[in-house]
């Protein structure tokens, strides 16, 4: 048994593999060169017509399928590609036999309109109730593929099958904090000694016309349609909402000693995890920021580090007026005046908000920041918000040694999750 323990006597959790897909491309290399050169992956939507829509751009991943895939199919494919890269990097197990558990953040399932329409059109026109009509044709159709992809467990089950993970797979959602939650669950399982390895994935391929309209109706989306690449403007004065996007991030987590024992390369260590629910409102944070502040402080406490040990913050930074104000206020509360000396950037300025996947993708980029010594910028930062006194690494990447990152993820429903990621164990 291993002997490396953290400040609370717990097993240390290493990252030994990672993979990513975003609108910028597939794989860490392509993504990293785009991110560090300040390139945006946001573009005009071509997946569906944009008539009558207030927002007409997104960070969709359009390079994987010739035809428009169903959301769950794209979500599964994104996860598969990210996980393949992560497992190959970790050199763990054998193909189809991953020696650990699966924790998977997936978007909630809806029957796509294309499926509903197919069922309706095939149905008996004399049945007046539209759902009765679809139900009748669903039973006659008896199509296992359409059936299975309508189930919430499907994407994780198929992923578990493909990679041969152990035990029952966990499908989870904590809204826009989901990717971070998947990592937290993996960290906790390894700390408990339940498993030596965990495959943690956040994936989201759900940019469809209805999901876009739903966020639009909440006034959450940017409407800066003229120049899509310039629409996502985290922490800028002229920010006006987030940009929906797709992608997946995957991490292979391992017990540090088990990883060392098998000769694995340690890419990083997850030093601390924390979350705190907000009881204020379904979409808004408590005005004093206390749950966000609490989550950050608990994460630093869980990591056992001092404030001055954090040398980069990977912001949630959605580009909504509300989030960025609250995040900045909370960071100032936690770090005090020293906050102005810590570089903080938002990957979402370039890849948009990948929703369920964001926490996992941004963990991958946080680790890449540590490993490369280059901080990706917050692009589109032309008009500073005078109420936000943060060093957002505006517009241009910056070379700087980084060994400790705080990564934030917040979501509707009062979800606040924070990760502390380090170059190595204490």
């Amino acid at each position, binding site marked *: 048994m291993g002997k490396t323990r953290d400040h609370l006597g717990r097993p240390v959790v290493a990252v030994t593999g990672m993979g990513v897909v975003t609108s910028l491309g597939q794989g860490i290399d392509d993504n990293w060169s785009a991110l560090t050169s300040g390139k945006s992956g946001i573009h005009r939507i071509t997946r569906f017509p944009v008539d009558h829509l207030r927002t007409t751009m997104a960070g969709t991943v359009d390079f994987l399928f010739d035809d428009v895939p169903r959301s769950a199919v794209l979500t599964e494919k994104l996860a598969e590609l990210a996980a393949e890269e992560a497992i190959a990097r970790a050199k763990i197990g054998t193909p189809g036999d991953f020696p650990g558990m699966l924790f998977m953040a997936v978007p*909630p399932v809806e029957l796509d309109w294309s499926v509903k329409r197919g*069922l309706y059109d095939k149905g008996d026109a004399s049945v007046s109730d539209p*759902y009765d009509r679809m139900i009748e044709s669903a039973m006659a159709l008896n199509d296992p593929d359409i*059936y299975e992809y309508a189930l919430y467990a499907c994407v994780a089950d198929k992923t578990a099958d493909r990679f041969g993970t152990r035990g029952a797979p966990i499908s*989870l*959602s904590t809204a826009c904090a989901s990717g971070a939650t998947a990592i937290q669950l993996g960290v906790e399982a390894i*700390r408990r000694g339940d498993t030596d390895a965990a495959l943690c994935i956040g994936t989201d391929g759900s940019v469809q016309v209805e999901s876009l309209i739903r966020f639009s*109706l909440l006034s959450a989306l940017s409407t800066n349609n003229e120049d899509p690449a310039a629409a996502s403007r985290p922490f800028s004065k002229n920010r006006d909402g987030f940009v929906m996007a797709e992608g997946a991030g995957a991490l292979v987590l391992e017990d540090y000693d088990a990883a060392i024992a098998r000769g694995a390369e340690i890419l990083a260590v997850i030093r601390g995890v924390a979350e705190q*629910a907000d009881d204020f409102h379904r979409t808004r944070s408590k005005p004093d920021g206390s749950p966000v502040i609490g989550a950050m402080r608990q994460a630093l406490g869980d990591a056992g580090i001092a404030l001055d040990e954090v040398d980069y913050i990977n912001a949630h930074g959605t580009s909504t007026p509300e989030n960025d104000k609250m995040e900045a206020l909370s960071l100032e509360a936690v770090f005090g005046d020293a906050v102005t000396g810590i570089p903080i950037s938002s990957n979402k300025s370039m890849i948009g908000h990948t929703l369920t996947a964001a926490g996992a993708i941004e963990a991958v980029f946080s680790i890449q920041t540590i490993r490369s010594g280059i901080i990706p910028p917050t692009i589109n930062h032309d008009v500073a918000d005078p109420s936000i006194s943060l060093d957002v690494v505006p517009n241009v990447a910056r070379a700087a040694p980084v060994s400790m990152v705080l990564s934030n993820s917040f979501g509707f429903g009062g979800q606040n999750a924070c990760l502390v990621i380090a170059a190595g164990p204490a």
Partner: protein
Amino acid sequence: MSDKSGTESARDVWITGIGLISSLGEGLDAHWQALAVDEPHVGAVDTDHFAPFPVLPMVPLELDKQIPRKADIRQMEPWQRLGTYAAGLALADAGLAGDLERLAHMDMIVAAGGGERDVDVDGQILAGLGVAADSEAFLNERLANDLRPTLFLAQLSNLLAGNISIVHKVTGSSRTFMGEEIAGISAVEIAARRIRAGQGDQFLVGAAYNAERKDMLLSLALGNTLWQGAVNSVWERANAGGGMVTGSLGVFLVLESREHAEARGRAGYAKLGPVLSGRSRREPGQAAAVARGQIDALRPALGDKPVGVLSGATGIARTTLEERALLETLVAEGIVGPIRATQSLIGNSLEAAFPAQVALAALALSRKGFYRPTDPTGLELEAADVPTQILATSWGFWRGEGMALLEAID
């Protein structure tokens, strides 16, 4: 994965609060009366609105007893109301309602499906798509005009947890697992593991399912999983082509470390022993092999006499018959004693099914009795002894095999 519950320890997991609502009634007394005292019968069955499928609707509730603010009720869909209501019952039962200090450190794992669709809007759009000149532009226009913003929030899976935080002030960690029955199994399993490992002292774990939904019935009908006709026992259904009956249900459990419960002077309904989850592709024999492996893993924790089983059989023919064959073998081997399939009377509540099994097992142990048989096919036999352990199982209608061993606290 194994789950070592160990012997008596401060980190034992106790069930110290239960909120349970279903088609049979509200609260534990109502469920005990309906399942253990009265001649077994289903509650009101709705054979009309969802024909050809029977549905077991929730008994009427006075929602404001657990969700005092009308504004909160308005912003929830029925499944969230059921869950938030049951969560309130569980917290009150555990003596934690309004205990803001403890609630601020309470962790939550909710198992949830998705939100309910506005079937009227869907229907109008589907009817219009066929006649619109430009169907895609028509879809955009109708959605942009007809969807309600609040409905979207009510559709997010994690918003049951969000509503529980808002209404009941549970504000530790908050996780939502998705994926039909397996989500409920994993929710109970991970909460128990975290308590045993010292990763938390008190958890609120549960789920809710509203069966009165055509959008869910559509998803389930895609797999031809639903029973048509009169509601009878799952064993009878399995012998007659098979199918499940869905039932509305809300269930939350307060799980607590023994030392935490004792320190605040609370007794538990039962001790939650090992919780095991597994999966298979459901080729013939695979689910039984997973369950057999779980039984073997539990053997050291089982007492001398055959253990009573609350089976999560759904009534879907192949899996239910496979489970029945396994149970008959285990009875013959003297491992399993009396068997009860709860879904014969309360239906399948998907994500809520396994937490409900755990709740009913804990209730029976605390009442020192067992439920009445509801099976004319001869599998469910009268129980002779007072149970000291009960095994709660779940085989998901599509995937996921799980079980939990509960023990009486003396």
